[in-house]
């Protein structure tokens, strides 16, 4: 994996598009996926250091995808950041249990995104 690679997983293509632009402008190499299933595949191929992932997605949701990613035989596990439109307090436990490292409430402020980039 490389910390300079970011994977954005969201079924809302507008979101994916703009997040990608943002990260690219911040100097990262970005890949995208439209659902959890694609997300898991891209993690294997692309070996990102950070994964920003929506939770409610068709085919495979963010929880399932995170759990699956955590079982992948990767050299090093990526950091998983959940993007949730729900009130964080209500979903926090489920999200962390699924294997995410951080939770961001939508719409995430650019500062929050940058903070995370700086952290990892």
């Amino acid at each position, binding site marked *: 994996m490389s910390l300079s690679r970011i994977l954005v997983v969201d079924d809302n293509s507008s979101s994916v598009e703009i997040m990608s632009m943002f990260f690219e*402008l911040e100097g990262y190499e970005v890949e995208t996926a439209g659902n959890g299933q694609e997300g898991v595949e891209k993690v294997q191929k692309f070996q990102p250091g950070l994964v920003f992932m929506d939770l409610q997605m068709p085919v495979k949701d963010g929880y399932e995808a995170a759990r699956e990613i955590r079982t992948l035989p990767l050299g090093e596990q990526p950091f998983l950041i959940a993007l949730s439109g729900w009130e964080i307090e209500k979903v926090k436990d489920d999200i962390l249990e699924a294997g995410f490292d951080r939770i961001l409430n939508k*719409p995430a402020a650019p500062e929050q995104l940058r903070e995370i980039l700086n952290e990892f």
Partner: protein
Amino acid sequence: MAKESSATFAAKIDPNLEERLQAKLANTGITVDQWLATQVENFLATGTQESEPYLRAVVDATPECIKVIDTDGTIVQINAAGLIMVESESIPEVCGTSVYRFIAPEFHEAFRQYHEKICRGEKAVLEFDMIGKNGACRHTEAQGVPFAGPDGKLRNLSLIRDVTSRKEAEEVQRRTTETLAELIKQSPLGIYVVDSDFRVSLVSRGALPAFRNVHPLIGRDFEEIMHTLWPESFASEAVSIFRHTLKTGEPYVSPGLTEKRKDISSIESYEWQVIRVTLADGRYGAVCYYFDVTRLQAAKLALQESEERFRMLAENMNQLAWTCEQLGEVNWYNQRWHDYTGMSFAELKEWGWKKLHHPDHIDRVEERICQCRERGEIWEDTFPLRGKDGKYRWFLSRAQPIRDEQGHIVRWFGTNTDVTELRETQQLLRDADRRKDEFLATLAHELRNPLAPIRTGLEVMKMAKDNPETLEKVRNTMERQTGQLISLVDDLLNVSRITRGKLELRKSRILLAEIIESAVEATRSCIDEKEHELSIVMPGEAIHLNADPNRMVQIVSNLLNNAAKYTPNGGDITLKAERHDGEVLISVEDNGIGIPPPMLDQIFEMFAQIDRPQEKGYSGLGIGLALVKSLVEKHDGTIEVHSDGSNRGSVFRVRLPVHPEEKSVEATDPNLDRIAVSAKKRKVLVVDDNEEAATMLAIEVELLGNEVRIASDGKEAIHIAAEQQPDVILMDLGMPNMNGFEAARHIRNQPWGKAVRLVALTGWGQEDDRRKTEEAGFDYHLVKPADSAALRSLLNK
């Protein structure tokens, strides 16, 4: 002495003498009288005649004392019984001595008079105390007759009877009678005695109050008394009872009596009995014993009344009611219980009610009952009870112990109140509340999703301000997301209007093709985003509807949005419109995730989606389809859904009546069937005090190929319009200097202003404003922010 006096005398000496003499003379032919006369004569005449020893024997055999006393008081003769009475054993010891030595000193004078009277030749009687030689005192009764002695002087022949025991008996009798009378008089119980002459002879203290109005009482005729105290019928009856008992000795026991008194007109109750007794005078009397039970009876009546009141209450209350002596062991149910359960008392009594309980609840219920019974606490519980229809209903049940003065529980009174509807309502409220919470959470979620790219997009725009290509891309995306937010807010407002019954349609004759065009325009970005293929199939003829254009666009765009949303990327969506006689069928079909059969029935219900075990990854407010259905129905149309199941796609079909003036064979206008109508260049005036908004709108209008000018308030608008002579004026309403309404009125009054198309720029939800704008002369409304499709359609009219 006369003969007959001899026989009398003999009888006096000894009542049995005659009998004995009769026996002795049985075979002699001599009567007792004859014999006695002879003997007495002989005895008196001779004293020492041959017959004397026999007579002596007779006299000695007599149990009474016979004495002959000389004038001076000397005892001349005495018989054996006399000797015993004076406690002597020999006649010589007594005869020849003074009689007074044997008379109690206090009787000496009386005896002297008695003696002298006899010696004067008269008969006399005297009661006195005789003292024996040894001092024994006897109470005696003496009867004396005179008879002549040998010297011719009259002597006293006294027959003296010992009446000591009789006297004592008399005394005892007297005392007994007195004691009994006293006992009766002092008794606090009601006792009175009616004697054989039917007069009241004795009344107990306890009976006096009952007779308080009878004066005098003792010795008064009982019949008279009864008629004074009681009404005729009862008085007569009582009198005849007394008479009967007195006569026959048959005792009488009353069954209890409650009567109104005649003398004091109060109602009194008695229990009484009459028996016959022998009174002191040796005659019969009737004794009446009675108890005054007036208070007892009144208490009984009061209890009865209270019991009746209780029954009345318990039978008329809305609840099921029952009573127990021991909580749980029911001894009475009200009629409602039987009506509800359809069971008899025999089936339900004691613990019989347990069979009506639901098996899931009975153990808990019974345990609580036993607990409350032991502790004497109010019992309260809520549980289902089976009715006669076999269905369970919920009852709030309560039982309260009723205690006596000492605090002991005498019984329990319990009720069961049907709370089924209350519980259902509560459940509905809870459900509604839960749905509301879920709705708000979902709403936040739905708003956040499009906001996320907008927020990030703004940042990207800042970062990429030198890169026009990126800027354009970001702007487009943000526009799409903004559109989504707007349609979400529109839906919300419409739902709010529908639920408040405030939704008004502004129907006009509109072209179906225009509706379809606007709807497709509005949803194009959603469809494109997911790379769906949209096919549109339109009929070859122009179809007009009598409908509200904005709502119609909403119907179709909602269905299209839905299809795009629930179809995985790259799906096929078909929008088709067909005409069937008087109606048009608009269908939207997709090959998406479909709808599971159980959901088909409720898919049009408000918030149906909330309760749906969510299709993986799809979320939504659950108002879109409910809104579509309401809008379709408002247009007298119908909507139906069909799906072969999960992942088999779905199809929504809307049927609407075509405009009534529409002829099914109207000549086809080929132009009308095409979606994009070529625009004619128009002169447009945009009026808005918000400079930015005005500029944005002006640019859009210009880009559509029109000539535009801008005014910033009503006054300026009038000025510019007079010069420009526009075809269309797009005017905000709230503006300084002169507002939109005033400006519109003014323009309509100008010769050039009659034909101008006046369009108001309004906010949603202001039905009142719409009426006002119409009055002011506006032709149309455009909702802010103006939708380009709607704008285009307006400009092309």
